[in-house]
């Protein structure tokens, strides 16, 4: 049986399955923003965008675009009934004040102690951009990271210690990859599920950090 790795949409759908009704959620740019498409509208989840939008809805029809309404990725979005606007300081008060139930961010690396690196690939980055990542990682009630399990050259992104510049310390509680879902615990990474075609040993083989089975 071949490994049925998840593609980007598959990862987003897998994250979406774990978001219960009633949560207030921020989705980072990249794979995370795709998550919204996989939460059915009748499961009310309120999506927050750092630029001061609460209650984002799906992308507009091409002829219904409101040019004044974008998300953090600068893509046009819609506003659901019940949605509202705040300014940037208030928007980040929502983030930093611990009012969001969840933030989902992309990552370059996640360490077994929950450290996350997702904003800069090197200390000599010629023009690093951080955006709201450090605020979101520290502020939300829980932080989930979504990323490919390995780099294009096959190196594990789940590591013992991050090598890239850190975004936040000990912040990630769960990681979703194309191969597995893992909780970050005091023991380190605990495997929640693995895609069909791959077993625990195979996953460990592809992972630099030590994996654990649930207690």
């Amino acid at each position, binding site marked *: 049986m071949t490994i049925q790795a998840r593609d980007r949409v598959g990862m987003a759908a897998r994250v979406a399955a774990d978001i219960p009704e009633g949560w207030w959620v921020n989705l980072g740019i990249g794979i995370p923003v795709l998550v919204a498409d996989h939460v059915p509208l009748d499961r009310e989840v309120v999506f927050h965008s750092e630029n001061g939008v*609460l209650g984002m809805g799906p992308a507009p029809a091409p002829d219904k675009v409101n040019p004044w309404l974008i998300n953090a990725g600068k893509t046009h979005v819609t506003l659901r009934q019940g949605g*509202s*606007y705040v300014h940037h300081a208030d928007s980040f*008060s929502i983030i930093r*004040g*611990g009012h969001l139930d969840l933030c989902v961010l992309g990552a370059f690396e996640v360490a077994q102690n929950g450290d996350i690196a997702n904003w800069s690939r090197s200390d000599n980055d010629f023009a690093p951009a951080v955006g709201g990542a450090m605020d979101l990682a520290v502020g939300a009630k829980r932080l989930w990271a979504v990323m490919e399990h390995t780099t294009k050259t096959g190196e594990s992104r789940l590591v013992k210690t991050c090598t890239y510049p850190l975004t936040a310390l000990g912040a990630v509680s769960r990681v979703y990859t194309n191969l597995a879902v893992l909780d970050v615990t005091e023991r380190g990474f605990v495997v929640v599920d693995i895609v069909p075609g791959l077993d625990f040993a195979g996953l460990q083989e592809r992972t630099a950090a030590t994996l654990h089975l649930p207690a």
Partner: protein
Amino acid sequence: MIDKRVANVAAAMDGITDGATVLVGGFGAVGQPNQLIDGLIEQGARDLTIVANNSGVAEFGLAKLMKLRRVRKIICSFPRSAGSFVFEELYRAGEIELELVPQGTLAERMRAAGAGIPAFYTPTAFGTKLAEGKPTAEIGGRNCVLEYALPGDVALVEAWEGDRWGNLTYKDSGRNFNPVMAAAAKLTIVQVQRIVELGALPPEAVVTPGVYVDRLVAVPHEGPQG
């Protein structure tokens, strides 16, 4: 479906524990959640710390709560309002603790709690009795006092209209401390004049977004009292 509406004031008070810090909105009588305060009196929690701008008047509302010896400490800026004799008697008798905070520092400390700012510097009160014992620093040529965030376990908030997500508007000067406190507590309980359909409040007009609100109860009343 997200639905923060509860059936009545009694249901809204569920789970408030002895020893809780309770933020109470209002400035004077305007924006004061009188019906929720009555609910708290009924509910029975004791040993409370109350954070409010004033300390209640006559013998109802906050004053009644104090008279019933349910308040261990009050944190406020202006306890000596006209007619606030219950507080004054208890304070004179040493039966209630007072933490007096400049009104702007009081508002900012709760704003900080809601915004995830554990502490901040302010020039307010530097060199006065109210800054005694507090850390100070000179920043940009100004002498400042370090003040800490003031979070609540519970906030009792009066708003004007609300929807089932908990989005709120306020009426005129009834806004005052209410939106600040709504953001600063773990459990935010709101009384509104009326609950409207989701989508009825214009997105630009929402002052407190529902993310801050836990429970919403409709208690139409005639206007500010006390």
